[in-house]
């Protein structure tokens, strides 16, 4: 085992492995035993619901909380609380809308990646 020979032997083995993997993938795809592109599927309906609801609640809480503290500080008891909470609600809707749009874009991209692989599975 001399030093200069080692990498070439390794790379020959790697090339061979690559070829074998390619041919295996082709064969598997032709027979339909391997899905086009396997990717982790980290999106459940429950997860989405949780994502959206915490986004909304957090924005309302921050808006209301900020108003409460400022009211206490400036002595304008309910005014800023109400105004900033309204802004918080708006920010919540905004955030939910933004996340929903991103989810939609991801779903669209996924649908393009793997057509007809699984037609809507989490629709509950």
């Amino acid at each position, binding site marked *: 085992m001399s030093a200069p020979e080692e990498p070439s032997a390794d790379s020959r083995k790697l090339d061979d492995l690559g070829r074998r993997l390619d041919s295996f993938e082709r064969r598997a795809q032709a027979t339909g035993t391997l899905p086009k592109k396997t990717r982790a599927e980290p999106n*459940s309906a429950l997860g989405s619901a949780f*994502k959206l609801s915490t986004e909304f609640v957090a924005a309302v*809480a921050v808006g209301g909380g900020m108003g409460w503290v400022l009211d206490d500080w400036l002595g304008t008891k309910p005014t800023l609380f109400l105004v900033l909470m309204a*802004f918080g609600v708006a*920010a919540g809707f905004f955030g939910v809308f933004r996340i929903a749009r991103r989810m939609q874009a991801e779903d669209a991209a996924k649908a393009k990646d793997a057509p007809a692989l699984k037609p809507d599975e989490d629709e509950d």
Partner: protein
Amino acid sequence: MLHQIAGPMEQFVIKPIVPLHVGGLDLSFSNTSLWMALAVAGVTIFLTMGMARAALVPGRWQSMAEMTYEFIANTVRQNAGEAGMKFFPLIFTLFMFVLFCNLFGLLPYSFTPTSHIIVTFALAMLVFITVIVVGLLRHGLHFFSLFVPGGVPGWLLPIIVPIEIISFLSRPISLSVRLFANMLAGHTMLKVFATFVVSRGAAGGIMSAGAILPLLGIVAVTALEFLVAALQAYVFAVLTSIYLNDAINLHEHH
């Protein structure tokens, strides 16, 4: 007989193991510190031992270590671009820590540090402050243009800017509450089902057969909790890279 069963919230009680009080501060080494330390040790063992005998064609353990690495690297590249890879160590560390805290929490008799809001909030604040510091360092005061989205008519700005500020400030809250609430809800649900099994089983006679349903429920919920544990760690990593993207690239999105 019910009074002998531990309440569903008892699993979240923090118990000091090595009491330590410094100047009025309770710095005791508690069960939550223990399980966080175990999570760090677990991550370290998983990654270093996995790569200790690294081979060109990886074995099972090595490929698990490499897959988690690649998975998060791809997530960071997708959400924060190539420049975001500078923060890969931070995001990968957060992901692995949260993942192992969540997974170790599923072991019997263990404790889940991520079921405490203060732990998740500290992690979220770390992300939040990093975003602000990085944004200010890279863009100076121009960073605050984050609150002024492009293409908005001027008369709308008095409404849009407060909304953007509130939604920016709510990030650490939604980030921490999401993780904490998921862990808290899942573990409580498991214990509640377990209580049903014991109380039904103790009813005696034909009534004991009623224990079978909550028992099946526990099996299903445990499986779900494994999914949630991994998913929430992933969500934490994704959101961290999305927030860092704001700090790095301001308005352009990846």
